[in-house]
């Protein structure tokens, strides 16, 4: 188990700086997820922790020991790759045992450890097969087996589920969560899928363009986003942003009687409301929504529609069967569920 610290980390490829002066502490035994759009530097960060990518500036510390120059094996990290990176010429058994063989363990010790790892992942019947004979999910299990067999201090996952189909992705997600509970090791996980981040993480680190936008528990990020980027990234379907104006300390939205007292200078701002925080129906007036598409998920349904000024909205209408495209419905929301962002996307907190 290990505590990982990133202190003033930066990474540059020539003149291009992809990560700049980044600080982060990852607690012992935590499940930390780096999430962000592609190109935000999350994978690069993970690879710097792994020792696969040289560090341009700053320090990576594992258990308070500087590891910038250490080989991956000395850092005590194991990694699961996006496309599994199983050795094609080795059987499953050899793949899982390879790191132990490199560490010079005896044959009997290796086969004992491999058998244990295989049992815990339920891949014992596959041990004699080669990667080419396995399905995607099985390959992913083998890749995880290869990581756990070494009993590493830190597990690193680089988008491990993105090559799996949707159903398998959900079940593997649960399995990774279980693995974390069972082993209690520090795990760092990279993904661009906010659902994976929300469901797996103790702590989510939202990144954009090489910087941390916000780090915190999934609930913190959902309830209290620091800016419109985080607010839009966390939550599914994503938060609605409605253009508004701030005039003399009051918010005004075109086509709605809704208003709120806000601090800040006059100018354009954004009103953010999550789809699940809207209520549909008479008496809940806030806006009038023209429904374009109704997406029925069985348990719930989402309305995709437009406001009078053309702003598109997604609204959850859990208990409103019978709505169809073309309907115009009044929608409203509880004011305490609304978020406000200035023109640059920074959160405006209401003065109480």
């Amino acid at each position: 188990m290990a505590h990982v610290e990133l202190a003033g980390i930066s990474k540059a490829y020539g003149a291009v700086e992809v990560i700049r002066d980044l600080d982060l502490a990852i607690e012992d035994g935590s499940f930390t997820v780096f999430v962000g759009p592609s190109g935000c530097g999350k994978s690069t960060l993970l690879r710097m922790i792994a020792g696969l990518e040289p560090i341009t500036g700053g320090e990576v510390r594992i258990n308070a020991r500087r590891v910038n120059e250490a080989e991956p094996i000395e850092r005590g990290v194991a990694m699961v790759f996006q496309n599994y990176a199983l050795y094609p010429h080795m059987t499953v058994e050899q793949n899982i045992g390879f790191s132990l063989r490199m560490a010079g363990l005896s044959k009997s010790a290796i086969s004992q450890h491999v058998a244990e790892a295989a049992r815990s992942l339920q891949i014992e019947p596959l041990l004699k097969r080669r990667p080419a004979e396995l399905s995607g999910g099985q390959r992913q299990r083998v890749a995880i087996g290869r990581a756990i067999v070494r009993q590493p201090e830190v597990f690193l996952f680089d988008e491990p589920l993105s090559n799996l189909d949707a159903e398998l992705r959900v079940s593997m997600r649960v399995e990774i969560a279980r693995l974390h509970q069972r082993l209690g090791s520090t795990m760092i996980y990279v993904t661009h899928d906010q659902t994976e981040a929300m469901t797996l993480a103790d702590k989510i680190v939202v990144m954009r363009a090489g910087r941390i936008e916000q780090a915190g528990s999934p609930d913190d990020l959902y309830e209290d986003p620091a800016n419109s980027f985080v607010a839009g990234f966390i939550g599914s379907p994503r938060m609605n942003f409605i253009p508004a104006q701030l005039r003399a300390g009051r918010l005004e939205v075109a086509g709605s009687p809704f208003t709120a007292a806000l601090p800040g200078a006059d100018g354009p701002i954004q009103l953010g409301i999550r789809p699940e925080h809207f209520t549909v129906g008479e008496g809940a007036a806030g806006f009038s929504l023209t429904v374009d598409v109704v997406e029925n998920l069985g348990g719930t349904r989402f309305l995709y529609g437009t406001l009078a000024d053309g702003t598109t909205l997604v609204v959850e209408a859990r208990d409103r069967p019978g709505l169809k495209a073309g309907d115009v419905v009044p929608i409203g929301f509880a004011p305490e569920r609304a978020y406000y962002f200035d023109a640059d996307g920074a959160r405006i907190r209401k003065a109480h």
Partner: protein
Amino acid sequence: MIGRAPFWTTALVGIVALIWIVPILGIVVTSIRPPSEVTLGWWRLDQVSFTLSAWQRVWEAYPLANAFWVTAQLAGMATIATMLLTPAAAYAFHFLKFPFRRLLLIIIINAFVLPQQVVIIPLFQLWRELGLIDNFLSVLIPYVGMSFAWSIFLVKNFLEDFPRELIEAAKIDGCGALSTFRHVVLPNTLSPVFAVGILQFLWTWNALLLPMLYLRSNVPLPVLLTRVSGTYDVNWDLRSVAAIVTTIVPLVIFLVFQRQFASGSQTRTGAKE
């Protein structure tokens, strides 16, 4: 006529193939007929008799067996050295970082444009200085060295598609540069390495220029063949046998391994493509 080649293609290919086969047929026929019958051409049927006397006499007349053994040694050693060193060099050039990597690669690959004939005189002087004339090394070193130009190029090209994650996974699993090469890169690079080996074997087996210049006492088959043909004896039958003995090995190698030339990359990380 789906699934069948048109008649004229078959005919054309057949004619070309026949043209190629005629000389080989000629050599075989010449080797089993007495020289007196074939002085006007092996196709003459004035008098027809078959004899294996040339096949029996040639071994005493010329040191054919020794030459065969010498050729096998030279081609074998040059092939093994190339098959071991080429993937190592290609791996280093492709995956490792060291000073002057690019420059060195350019120099080696550019040896491609350098014909053998250009280096024979400086090499001869060098071998004479070093006392390596009539030593196997005098031909093995250039065989292997000059093969690097194309062989490294070929294997490095293959490595372009080699999944980098495998190298990284090996690093995570505790491999250094050498163990990564041995355990991960080499086992997945066998098809280009065998292709390189086959080509190198064929070329070194048939090599004439270097051994003719640098070797004296133990010479390989192509050199012996030139000596056999260089005499004024009426020895068409013996020459034919020597030629067949010289050609048969490359022919068999090619027939057995021709699939290797066509085989492509077998390397997969296990990802769905």
